[in-house]
């Protein structure tokens, strides 16, 4: 399923950031004092929140819980497995 190029780029950036956050989370669980890791984690989580907000304002909810204040648009969007990630992907 095709989605617009800028929507796909934004989605990919969010996916990549959230992956890094999971990695940093796992690292921080065993290295809670690592200042550098904590700094990068805070930086990425701010950016991820920002991008998600931007995405949701433009394209609709990423998660069902974020779709609650609008009409139930959640089911209209393409499911993650329906998206063609390679279309002009990086």
């Amino acid at each position, binding site marked *: 399923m095709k989605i617009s190029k800028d929507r796909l780029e934004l989605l990919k950036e969010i996916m990549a*950031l959230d*992956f890094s956050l999971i990695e940093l989370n796992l690292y921080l669980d*065993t290295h809670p004092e690592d200042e550098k890791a904590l700094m990068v984690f805070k930086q990425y989580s701010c950016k991820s929140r920002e991008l998600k907000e931007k995405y949701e304002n433009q394209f609709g909810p990423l998660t069902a819980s974020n779709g609650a204040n609008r009409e139930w648009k959640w089911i209209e969007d393409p499911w993650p497995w329906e998206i063609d990630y390679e279309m002009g992907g990086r």
Partner: protein
Amino acid sequence: MKKYNMHVSPQMMGPGFKLARAYVPFQVMDKIYEPWKGLMRGTIFPELYDPYPKKKRSEED
């Protein structure tokens, strides 16, 4: 019980082979991959990226 006796005993492998020693050196974060590269490689820590088969690091994404 023959069919279960297929392991190679240390004697057969010679004295140099000891039983395994498991260890995990304590990781210290240094450089990390950019988010997209990390997602493609499955880790953001270069020291943990170890694909099979041995590919030259520079060539793949």
